[in-house]
């Protein structure tokens, strides 16, 4: 199969899925009997984003992408880490507390905080990994539970040790010397593209290299494709489970760090919850592929950021984009399976051709 064809196949399913999602959204808008038409909806959503929205899309993309990679590391070996949400919540809180305490100066503080965020995310995910390898507890169940525990734990710790002011609690604000705001592409008021968004680039490249170029990545993929074959080939599956949970959690720990060091500077009401679940959806949409997930993350960030304008220009609730996102994920799963089957059938034909070709010569 040549490269062009392969790229075509890789794009086929997501394109079909996005089209179905757009169609479904339009039908929902029509069916809702809203004063605005589906055309109004798409003209708002597909309008050229304003500068500050452009910045927001890029910033959100970086965080969503990190979350998607965290989920994908598990998915690629058939491990369903639903706990990205809890892992990054706890990691964000811990790192923000540490960074706010300013025990270390400037950039060293940033670096140390990132390490702590990764460590906390890894430990939280590791609990699920250990439960799975030693007691056989399904990671789906344990990570969902750990999500709840993390939320409650953070709420409690914040309440106990946070700074109370007005009606809010937050961690101690980050000292100016450790702030990493970023690059301002337009005017100041349009905001900055967070420097630590580059973490997403680094993690994306790292994930690609790990998967495709290293022995570990091969073992990871092999375990995901066939655990039985992996065992027979000498892969220690339990060890892989634990290591990939730790890796997944470590990446999860980084999710909110661009926002923290870039503009929030404290963990409080500005903490953005829900990215962990968005990441799962984007990982599915991007087929757990480093490149595919970029498109997924951009799509999600784009739709969410553009939806804000809906209430001002149409009579459609911004929640409608969640239908687009949801249907896209569902449709992509189905479309991938169909494309996969079609592709196998094509390959089997080409195998059959290879086998019968000499025969036809003989016959002729």
């Amino acid at each position, binding site marked *: 199969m040549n490269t062009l064809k392969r790229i075509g196949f890789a794009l086929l399913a997501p394109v079909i899925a996005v089209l179905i999602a757009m169609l479904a959204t339009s039908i929902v808008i029509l069916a809702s009997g809203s004063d605005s038409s589906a055309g109004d909806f798409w003209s708002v959503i597909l309008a050229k984003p304003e500068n500050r929205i452009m910045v927001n899309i890029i910033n959100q993309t970086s965080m969503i992408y990190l979350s998607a990679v965290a989920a994908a590391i598990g998915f690629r070996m058939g491990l*369903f880490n639903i706990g990205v949400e809890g892992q990054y919540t706890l990691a964000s809180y811990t790192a923000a507390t540490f960074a706010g305490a300013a025990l270390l100066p400037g950039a060293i503080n940033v670096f140390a905080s990132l390490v702590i965020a990764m460590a906390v995310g890894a430990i939280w995910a590791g609990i699920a990994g250990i439960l799975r390898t030693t007691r056989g507890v399904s990671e789906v169940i344990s990570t969902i539970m750990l999500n709840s525990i993390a939320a409650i734990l953070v709420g409690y710790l914040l309440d106990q040790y946070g700074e109370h002011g007005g009606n809010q609690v937050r961690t101690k604000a980050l000292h100016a010397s450790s702030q990493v705001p970023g690059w301002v592409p337009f005017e100041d008021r349009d905001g900055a593209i967070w420097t630590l968004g580059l973490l997403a680039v680094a993690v994306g490249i790292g994930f690609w290299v790990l998967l495709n170029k290293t022995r570990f990545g091969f073992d990871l993929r092999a375990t995901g494709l066939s655990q039985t074959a992996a065992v027979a080939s000498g892969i220690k599956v339990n060890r892989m489970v634990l290591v990939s949970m730790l890796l997944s959690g470590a990446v999860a720990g980084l999710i909110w760090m661009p926002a923290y060091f870039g503009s929030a500077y404290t963990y409080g009401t500005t903490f953005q919850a829900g990215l962990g679940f968005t990441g799962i959806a984007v990982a599915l949409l991007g087929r757990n592929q480093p490149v595919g997930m970029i498109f997924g993350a951009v799509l999600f960030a784009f739709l969410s950021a553009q939806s804000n304008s809906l209430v001002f220009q149409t009579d459609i609730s911004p929640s409608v984009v*969640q239908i687009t996102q949801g249907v896209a994920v569902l449709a992509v799963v189905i479309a991938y399976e169909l494309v996969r089957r079609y592709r196998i059938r094509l390959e089997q034909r080409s195998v059959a051709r290879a086998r019968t070709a000499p025969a036809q010569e003989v016959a002729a």
Partner: protein
Amino acid sequence: MRRTTKFAAVVAASLMALTACGSDSDGGSDGGSASGGSSTDASADVCKTADGSGPKIGLAYDVGGRGDQSFNDSAYAGVAKAVEDFDATCLEGEAQDGEAESAREDRLRQMADAGATAVIGVGFAYSDAVNAVAPDYPDVAFGVVDGYDPDDKANDNVAYFSFAANESSFLVGVAAAETTKSKQVGFVGGVHNDLIKSFEAGYTAGVHAVDPSIKVDIAYIEESDLSGFGDPAGGKTAAAGEFDKGADVVYHASGASGSGVFDAAVEAGDGNWAIGVDSDQYLTATADQQPHILTSALKRVDVASYDFIKSVNDGSPNTGYVTYDLKNDGVGYSTSGGFLDSIQSDIDGYADKIKSGDIKVPTAP
């Protein structure tokens, strides 16, 4: 095969995450359509029809949005009155569950860019966003309900409305104490934060002022996630638990989740009461909920919003912290339904003592 099943579970989980947000934000309609506040219902929406020449008001709702039968609706009521009185126009926007901080900022900026001269963020979650946006729009007056200036730099075009919710909660606590037969009452908070804890503290103090032996059950829907204000199912579970344990009056401070608390009271049967919050929830409740709504602790967000717009209209916008308490009628309790007729004088007696300073209501449990 096993893999496929697992895969399906994951897809379902991620869709749940997505759709859960969708249902939450329209939680208000869950309690029946009596509120008439669904955001697609254009006829009831004064912001869609107003076209006066007065101030242009931007109204940014918190999670739950208009139709929450609680403080978002209350803010809307104040704006609606202002639209009428000052020939104003208005714009609305609504927070999504789990949205980015930048989305909140963007919402405020869109309003300011669209020409709003007064922008009200409904809910303390707008504090940071307003703080970030306000300096870029020196000619726009910003107001934040329950707001708080997060940094040391004072903003001279931002007003923070703070409410002595502990005082109104104290009064409904008195009402609860004088109504309960089981000597056990309950409290359901939306999110376990300082704001809601002051409701809890006032309520408990009010109950115990009447009879220190009455037991007060406390429950919170969420520990820190703001979705606790838009989760009727969670509210119902929490309240039902308290009714089951023997409480017969439950006070909620949980925004749009409150409709679930009312449902729980209905299911608990006659003689079981719920107390509403922020606005007079008797008026927006469904017919079968009404007989169970003893009273509501009023937090006059409508008054605050109206005052703020008035000050903008007068050319001298309020700035800084503006406190609303019993003394200036910024908080209070409702009597719709007539369930308090026999004890109203007692409650007013406590109110006078609070106004005079004889009773100091705590703000933290």
